[in-house]
């Protein structure tokens, strides 16, 4: 409900001007948001010739919004120069793996933090939260060396493997997931699992039979958060992945090389790799937004 504005009785014309200004402002916001996306879509339908010959200084060849020749060739050839389909597969495997393990590990930890009373609870919560303070750069070097040494002394290769990447990203995802899920579980009444225990369930049984079915939205939210995090991560992917596990987030840069810039193909690939993230987000927008907001406002 809008509050009645005392000025509106006196000056109806002013009110109309305010409405117009309001819609103009909304339009401006939308334009600023959408321009890069429109440019991306437009670029993905241009021929590579059109983009290569574009020149802001030459009147006939200025870059245009509407492609001179509309083509689908960039989508058809998306996998010709860069094996983006392989990268897409790698990203899917790593992101789903991360999603799965992050859910499993976060549920049990969040359950313990929400329902158990034990020594060191505060310290553990603080430790979990503290991992969010350190930038990736503060441990990427020793982490890389750790992988190298494990391979050397234990003969287990973690670099450029799916398990190594899933382990890495799962760990990146769990601190936020644990805290978010703990807040969620705190809002589920304790009487419910107390009752389950009276009815003869063990703690683990209560978790599986009562808590998990009740916390569906929370679990979905952290699952999607973990998936998106793994799909988008750049820093560790650039060090720890090679040809066999390269993800789309860094693979996409290969369209531009010293020799050739394939902008139109890159724009097509940009659209394709955004699809999973956009789908998941629109699907679960409410839960994620709630999670982010409560995470930020509750501290």
């Amino acid at each position, binding site marked *: 409900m809008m509050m009645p504005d005392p000025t509106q009785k006196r000056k109806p014309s002013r009110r109309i001007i305010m409405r117009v200004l309001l819609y103009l402002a909304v339009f401006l916001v939308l334009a600023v948001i959408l321009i890069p996306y429109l*440019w991306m879509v437009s670029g993905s339908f241009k021929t590579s010739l059109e983009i290569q010959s574009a020149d802001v200084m030459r009147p006939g060849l*200025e870059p245009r919004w509407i492609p001179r020749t509309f083509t689908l060739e960039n989508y058809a050839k998306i996998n010709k120069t860069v094996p983006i389909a392989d990268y897409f597969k790698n990203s899917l495997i790593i992101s789903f793996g991360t999603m799965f393990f992050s859910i499993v590990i976060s549920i049990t930890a969040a359950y313990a933090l929400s329902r158990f009373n034990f020594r060191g609870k505060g310290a553990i919560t603080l430790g979990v939260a503290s991992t969010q303070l350190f930038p*990736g750069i503060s441990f990427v070097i*020793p982490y890389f060396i750790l992988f190298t040494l494990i391979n050397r002394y234990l003969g287990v290769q973690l670099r450029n493997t799916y398990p190594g990447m899933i382990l890495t990203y799962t760990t990146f995802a769990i601190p936020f997931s644990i805290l978010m899920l703990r807040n969620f579980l705190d809002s589920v009444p304790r009487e419910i699992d107390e009752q389950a225990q009276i009815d003869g369930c063990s703690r683990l049984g209560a978790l599986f039979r009562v808590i998990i079915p009740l916390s569906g939205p929370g679990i979905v939210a952290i699952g999607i958060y973990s998936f998106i995090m793994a799909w988008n991560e*750049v820093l560790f992917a650039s060090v720890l992945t090679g040809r066999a596990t390269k993800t789309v987030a*860094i693979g996409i840069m290969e369209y531009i090389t010293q020799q050739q810039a394939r902008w139109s193909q*890159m724009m097509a690939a940009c659209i394709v790799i955004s699809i999973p993230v956009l789908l998941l987000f629109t699907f679960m927008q409410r839960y994620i937004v709630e999670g982010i907001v409560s995470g930020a406002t509750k501290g």
Partner: protein
Amino acid sequence: MEASSWGKRDRKAYWFILPAALCMLFVHFIPIFWGVYISFLDLDVYTLTQWTSAPWIGLGNFIQIFSGKFAVGKKFLESVYNVIIYGVITIPVGYVIGLLVALLLNRNFVGRTFVRGLILLPYITPDSVAYNVWRFIFQARLGLVNKYLLKLGLIKEPIVWLVGKRSLWAVIIASVWKGWPFGCLILLAGLQGIPAELYEAARIDGASPWQQFKMITFPMLRPVTRTLLMMNVIWNFHAYNQFYILLGGSVGDAHVPSTFIMQEAFTNLHYGLGSAMAVVLMVIILLLITVLMQVKRKNTEHAL
């Protein structure tokens, strides 16, 4: 906590936490502390295979960073300066845009829900997509920015945006575009938490919209603002993707600590020196957090 079966200490909890604790130990804590140790070594690609024989050089790496005699140290300190400039601009600008749009979206208009969903688009778009599109937009010869700057007569010749000192500005523009929706989302939630009665009372007292903003809206948003700024200040030093992707991996003159450390460690293969720089960065972040916490505490005391 209520006195019931929940009040009792339960050791089983540790088993529930163990997997998460092991992961974080392996990926976060051991490497962070080990990184401090490595920063005292002259560890490079030659000594890496013979890890135990890497010579201990004490503060050698740190001397390289701070003495001012070495190009590496100078470039690193420059990168710290760059990230501060980057933050000093992106954080306030992003906050103001986020707040203005939040105020706008808090009013009634047709299609409000739709617009509220849409503003999240930049926030959820993968970094690698968003910054590659901006890289396309900033291209000198075929980009949108130069096209319109020329059309408006603001420049006579196409500007090379993504090379040299100017590239920092390109990154700032692109990251503000990507970053403000997050703040907007949080501020909008804050706005919705302000009781409507406050505005009603103010209006009866004849307060102008500006006075209402100054006396009600802004003070009521203070806790949210504080959290938001704190997160932004910390995240500012995490900056990597926007620089690495927008500048196509060759960051050149617009290095920030993360990109510079990556180059030193993984292109020049100086792991020890890279770790030392990472330690310096961590110390800077920890100092900042301590200062921010102090300020926060003082502010809350005032409020009481």
